[in-house]
């Protein structure tokens, strides 16, 4: 059952990823990216990361991608013209990529220490309580620094995007 779920969500993620790269209009790419994030949230659930799966849906798919969709709709720049790919790229690009990925998969499989297969429910340490405990004791300094980082990002975005007052 876990293998079937992994196959389904991995297939959805890869197909949406390919769709992101292939589509000409940015809105289609944005919605494909939302599809990738949804599939990845399901994979996080299989790996026992329930809080990270929820955070992915709330923060990434529900806020960041909505921001992208807004900007695309506001700018309304239209579909991109398809560029001409030089013949070297067209005929060598995809096969070379597949060879590269095959080599990566082989080395990952060989160097990975032997571990048990991924079973839903085998890792119970990803609950909100565990993450909260770790975040507020061991990782307190990065937590506070990221809050300052977000403040800087908010100020920067507001200053950059406001209308100039003449």
């Amino acid at each position, binding site marked *: 059952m876990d293998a079937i779920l992994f196959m389904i969500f991995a297939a959805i993620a890869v197909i949406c990823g390919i769709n992101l790269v292939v589509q000409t209009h940015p809105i289609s790419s944005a919605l494909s990216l939302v599809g990738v994030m949804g599939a990845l949230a399901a994979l996080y659930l299989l790996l026992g990361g329930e809080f990270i799966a929820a955070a992915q849906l709330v923060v990434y798919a529900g806020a*960041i991608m909505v921001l992208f969709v807004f900007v695309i709709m506001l700018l309304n720049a239209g579909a991109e013209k398809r560029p001409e790919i030089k013949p070297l790229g067209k005929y060598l690009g995809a096969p070379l990529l597949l060879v590269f990925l095959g080599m990566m998969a082989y080395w990952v499989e060989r160097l*990975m220490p032997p571990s048990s297969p991924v079973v839903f429910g085998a890792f119970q340490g990803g609950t909100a309580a565990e993450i909260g405990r770790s975040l507020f004791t061991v990782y307190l300094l*990065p937590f506070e620094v990221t809050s300052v980082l977000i403040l800087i990002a908010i100020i920067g975005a507001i200053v*950059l995007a406001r209308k100039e007052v003449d």
Partner: protein
Amino acid sequence: MPFGPLPAAVPPSWYLTLSAILFALGVLGFLLRRNIITVFMSIELMLNAVNLSFVTFSYVLKRVDGHIFSFFVMVVAAAEAAVGLAIILTVFKNRQTLEIDEVSTLKN
């Protein structure tokens, strides 16, 4: 990689391979596309692939630290998306185009 009948559960290295595939797709989009927003979205795809790696290793080592790193990556990606999109809006206001090949007045 087992080439027999499908096992009942999948080893974690398959998750890492999926992460590599998504990362490669992100790099492909980053290098090949000309619309600046699509380039930005390829960067987000790369960040997502890395998040999957973190959570997989957190499962293998049975610690929660991978989830924490993934959480910080999400937060930083949010901040970067906000500022990056504001920059894109400013570029569009000044150049009326979203193609990265045409924003090249400083070249040569």
